């Protein structure tokens, strides 16, 4: 069924967005564009270069003495002034926004420097000295469960912070009775939707009222407002949250700004001045928030015809170093939907949540969906492959039947509406599936590598605030009291001139909420949307809001727009009575159209909307008895269907359930391993469509993220916890060259549970597309198992039958040293116009070294064979100051020497060893040959292999050039090594 928008309605039309004029002309106001109080300080954060270490000492004296610095905040200060953030499971563990006694991931905040401008704050941050005792790290969730694994939080006794088992129906019997047991074993990687605008916070503290006012590009209040207020030890009404008018994308990620709201609040309190912090990209990649990675074993009991009678899930969820609110929501958001689009009566689930030495996780587009649909839809393909069935038939035979809606899933979700079979049939017919199969046949006949993938998914939206409590046992829930619902709120107001404003706390981050709300309210009141003004950012001190308010779980169209409709309807009903009085007729005769209110029976009998609407301001005495006021209507709406989890752990985790069926054809270049998406078709049922172009925009945007997740993106960590995706040159985001244009189809079945019939549509392709592409690649290369991201090197490995490689492009990464290190090795040689003896002397002379070491601020002799240096080094975007300590060993004057060095700076650390050999090549010239092996860690190590190797070569080259010049010119070739301790070691 397709609902054609009637010509007299605004909803359903792709009207231009009211947001765009400001965004296109540079007038939009993002957080870093807003004016601040003149005494505002800028913050720079000192972060851990180590994945796991005890903090022995934080020395802030040098930083405090630096120009412009007003205060330095450490973990001790934060501990003193706040309390640990609420953790979502019952566990003996604390959760702080800054390291207190121990760091547990690379990038964890250790200190905050507050200065009069950002440059000064960053300079001083480099002077904060931190002594670490490095601990072994664990990054793999399965390894983290092992007996030998280092334990992140000693109070927990292990890295397993929560485990629950669930059983629905009778899975044991179903497995025993089924002729086939088919399973998949999946490691779903970490990735992040990385908005182009990073985090920002401006915090004020008023000691007189013990009140915080925090501006942040956060996306709520959401339940997180309560977490922040509790942590800051103030009542909710002393924690005023505001958001800027514009926010540069989020896709869930900006939820993770909240620990910084706490930190900057404390910083403002300590400094006695407002504090502003704008995150940089390197901080964002290393330490904002990522999706969870998950290890999943999924098995199905399968009949001969491919029908599934039971599923057995075993999920190990990796939430990183801390279980930060709202986690473990990623794991439980899908709990009602563990059977996907299928009617499967028997389900068992074992959920384990582990902590590892990686960045804490949080919201990310698709939130839990990709981690579930990847195993589930890989399983569907595996069933088809094993039983030699058509994969379309395997999907079709298992779909929830069209006459079964609303349908209760085994785990408790109430699927609101759908016609999955028809939607699938239409996608196959209108999307050209048969032609694609032909294409594959032709391609294969020509020897090309071509495959087809499918995926079906149910896209949940409007989260039940109670789903997260499914992590508690029924007894624990009993004690804690029920949680449920999804309060949405909207206000429609009339001013004394009779114009209409809408206010919601939906906090859009580019989705165009204001445009849609103007359409919805214009329809209800017979106005032009251009005449309706909309505010969608939030001020918790002034606005109507509740715990579910904000921008997440695709709740805008179904919930917030619906609440706005209800508020406008309520106002319209009252205005009918007022107008009936003015027009001498009855309320039922009243119609709203074209900015006027008229009698239906006699349309000439009319009055302007504003005249009727303003009456409550100018002449309240004239309102009819039944009307109190027509100035402002605020509606709170929460659907009854969102009940708390019941005693059997059944949970309707979301209100609405869209349906998606995707298929695609991919071709793989067998020589490079590159994947080209030849055709992608995506069929959506998102209920009633409010704004077709915006729905397409959501589908395309989600699709592009999913292409990245499938082929490119991974937050990669070394085995030692080093972060290896630290810049946008390492964490590859798809560009226009990698994202094809999908064919988008719709099959609308309006939701019976939402005021407008709409369902969410923002996240579906992040759930369906990664696995659809993976299925196509597996089909193309006939692989049983494939792991995302399917980079060219990984695909080449699969074609060659090798074990998949960790990451592309091939890099010189060897698991190294104790913690957070990346190995660099190299060798080279140069010739200089000096004798061996002269070169030897130069290498042992602090003055010469000072002159020739790039970026040196002075070399000090500690003994004849021991030097200390201060150097500034830059690797790509990471520039910093380091202290280097260099010792000479195995001296064989004037033939050879070994250097061993260590460097440490705010941005990282390094250590290494190199051997230099001097050979006389006649005419007073010497050939200097060197080999080195060094490890670097911390922020510098996160900039990635290509940059790092390149920078090492450049610095070593500079050193040699300088040495040659010093010796009297004539150097050739590459660089040298003394440097490299300092250089490679420290900044390489």
């Amino acid at each position, binding site marked *: 069924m397709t609902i054609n928008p009637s010509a007299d309605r605004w909803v359903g039309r792709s009207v*231009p967005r009211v947001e765009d004029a400001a965004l296109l002309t540079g007038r939009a106001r993002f957080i870093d564009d807003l004016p601040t109080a003149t005494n505002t300080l800028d913050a720079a954060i000192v972060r851990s270069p180590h994945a796991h270490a005890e903090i022995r000492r934080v020395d802030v004296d040098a930083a405090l003495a630096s120009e412009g610095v007003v205060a330095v905040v450490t973990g001790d200060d934060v501990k003193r002034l706040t309390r640990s953030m609420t953790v979502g499971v019952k566990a003996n563990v604390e959760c702080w926004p800054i390291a207190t006694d121990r760091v547990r991931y690379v990038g964890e905040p250790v200190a905050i420097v507050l200065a009069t401008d950002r440059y000064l704050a960053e300079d001083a941050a480099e002077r904060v000295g931190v002594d670490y005792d490095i601990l072994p790290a664990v990054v793999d969730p399965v390894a983290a469960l092992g007996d030998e694994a280092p334990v992140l939080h000693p109070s927990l006794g292990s890295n397993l912070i929560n485990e629950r088992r669930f059983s629905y129906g009778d899975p044991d019997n179903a497995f025993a009775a089924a002729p086939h047991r088919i399973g998949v074993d999946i490691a779903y990687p970490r990735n992040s939707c990385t908005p182009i605008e990073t985090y920002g916070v401006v915090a004020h503290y008023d000691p007189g009222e013990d009140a915080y006012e925090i501006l942040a590009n956060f996306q709520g209040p959401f339940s997180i407002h309560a977490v922040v207020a509790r942590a800051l030890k103030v009542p909710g009404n002393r924690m005023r949250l505001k958001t800027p008018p514009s926010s540069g994308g989020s896709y869930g990620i900006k939820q993770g700004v909240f620990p910084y709201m706490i930190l900057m609040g404390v910083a403002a309190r300590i400094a006695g001045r407002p504090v502003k912090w704008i995150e940089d990209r390197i901080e964002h990649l290393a330490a904002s928030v990522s999706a969870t990675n998950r290890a999943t074993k999924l098995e199905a009991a399968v009949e001969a015809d491919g029908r599934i009678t039971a599923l057995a899930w075993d999920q190990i969820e990796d939430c990183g170093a801390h279980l930060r609110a709202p986690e473990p929501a990623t794991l439980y958001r899908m709990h009602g939907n563990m059977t996907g689009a299928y009617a499967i009566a028997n389900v068992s689930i074992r959920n384990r949540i582990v902590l590892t030495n990686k960045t804490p996780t949080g919201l990310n587009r698709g939130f839990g969906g990709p981690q579930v649909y990847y195993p589930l839809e890989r399983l569907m393909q595996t069933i088809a492959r094993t039983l030699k069935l058509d994969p379309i038939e395997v999907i079709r035979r298992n779909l929830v039947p069209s006459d079964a809606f609303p349908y209760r899933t085994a785990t408790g979700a109430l699927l609101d509406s759908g016609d999955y079979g028809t939607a699938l049939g239409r996608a196959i017919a209108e999307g050209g599936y048969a032609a694609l199969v032909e294409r594959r046949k032709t391609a294969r006949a020509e020897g090309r590598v071509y495959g087809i993938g499918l995926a079906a998914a149910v896209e949940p939206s409007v989260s039940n605030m109670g789903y997260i409590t499914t992590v508690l046992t029924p007894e624990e829930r009993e004690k804690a009291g029920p949680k449920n619902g999804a309060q949405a709120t909207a206000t429609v107001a009339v001013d004394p001139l009779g114009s209409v404003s809408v206010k919601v706390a939906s906090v859009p981050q580019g989705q165009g909420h204001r445009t849609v709300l103007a359409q919805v309210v214009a329809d209800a009141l017979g106005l032009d949307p251009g005449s309706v003004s909309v505010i969608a950012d939030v001020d918790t001190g002034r606005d109507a809001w509740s715990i579910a308010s904000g921008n997440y779980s695709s709740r805008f169209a179904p919930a917030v727009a619906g609440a706005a409709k209800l508020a406008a309807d309520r106002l319209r009903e009252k205005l009918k009575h007022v107008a009936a009085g003015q027009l001498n007729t009855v309320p039922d005769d009243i119609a709203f159209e074209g900015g006027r209110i008229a009698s239906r029976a006699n349309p000439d009998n009319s009055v302007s909307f504003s005249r009727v609407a303003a009456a409550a301001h100018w002449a309240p005495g004239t309102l009819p008895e039944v009307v109190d006021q027509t100035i402002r209507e605020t509606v709170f709406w929460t659907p009854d269907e969102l009940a708390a989890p019941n005693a059997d752990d059944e949970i309707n985790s979301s209100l609405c359930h869209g349906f998606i069926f995707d298929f695609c054809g991919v071709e793989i270049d067998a020589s490079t391993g590159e994947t080209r998406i030849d055709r992608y078709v995506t069929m959506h049922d998102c209920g009633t469509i409010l704004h077709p172009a915006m729905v397409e925009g959501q589908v395309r945007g989600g699709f592009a993220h999913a292409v990245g997740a499938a082929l490119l993106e991974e937050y990669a960590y070394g085995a030692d916890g080093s972060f290896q995706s630290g810049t946008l040159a390492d964490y590859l985001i798809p560009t*226009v060259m990698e994202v094809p244009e999908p064919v988008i189809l719709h099959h609308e079945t309006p939701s019976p549970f939402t005021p407008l019939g709409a369902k969410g549509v923002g996240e579906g392709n992040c759930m369906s597309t990664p696995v659809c592409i993976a299925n196509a690649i597996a089909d193309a290369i006939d692989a049983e198992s494939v792991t995302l991201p399917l980079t060219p090197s990984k695909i080449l490995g699969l074609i060659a039958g090798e074990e998949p490689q960790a990451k592309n492009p091939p890099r010189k990464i060897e698991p190294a040293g104790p913690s957070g290190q990346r190995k660099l090795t190299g060798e080279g040689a140069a010739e200089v116009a000096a004798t061996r003896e002269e070169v030897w002397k130069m290498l042992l002379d602090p003055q010469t070294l000072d002159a020739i070491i790039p970026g040196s601020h002075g070399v000090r002799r500690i003994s004849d064979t021991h030097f200390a240096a201060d150097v500034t080094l830059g690797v790509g975007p990471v520039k910093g100051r380091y202290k280097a300590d260099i010792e000479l060993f195995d001296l064989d004057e004037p033939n050879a020497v070994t250097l061993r060095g260590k460097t440490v700076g705010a941005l990282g650390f390094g250590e290494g060893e190199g051997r230099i050999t001097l050979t006389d090549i006649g005419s007073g010239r010497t050939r200097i040959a060197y080999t080195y092996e060094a490890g670097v860690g911390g922020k510098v190590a996160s900039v990635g292999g290509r940059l790092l190797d390149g920078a090492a070569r450049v610095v070593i080259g500079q050193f040699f050039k300088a040495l040659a010049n010093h010796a009297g010119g004539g150097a050739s070739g590459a660089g040298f090594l003394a440097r490299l301790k300092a250089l490679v070691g420290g900044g390489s």
Partner: protein
Amino acid sequence: MLLTDLIRHAVGATGTHVGCEHGVCGACTVQIDGEPVRACLTLAAQAEKLDIRTVEGLEPRPGELSPLQAAFREHFALQCGFCTAGILMSLDALFARKPKASEREIREQLSGHLCRCTGYAPIVKAALAAQAHVREEKTTDA
């Protein structure tokens, strides 16, 4: 001082955005003497005496969008708009240099920009539409 800081915080033209400060995302793109340049990789001193044009300079008159800006609105080529200023400056420079740039050239120019919201297809459409419009205008003028 970086050119981005000069433009945004000293001059106060905040329409130019910073997304990475390491030259990859393209959000900070401005025109220096007509050439698209990453302001985050440029020192303010390097731009001395040169002509800098930012997104604030694209509107023909306040409240009126240029054909390129209008095409972006018409084709829903932006969502959050954080990447948009850089993309507009880049395309504007391309069309000034090459009014008949092919779709391939447009895509190549766009490949220096990251957009996380739109999936790019509407941006390509908007660019092609704007280019057609500008060409038409040129023909009518002539």
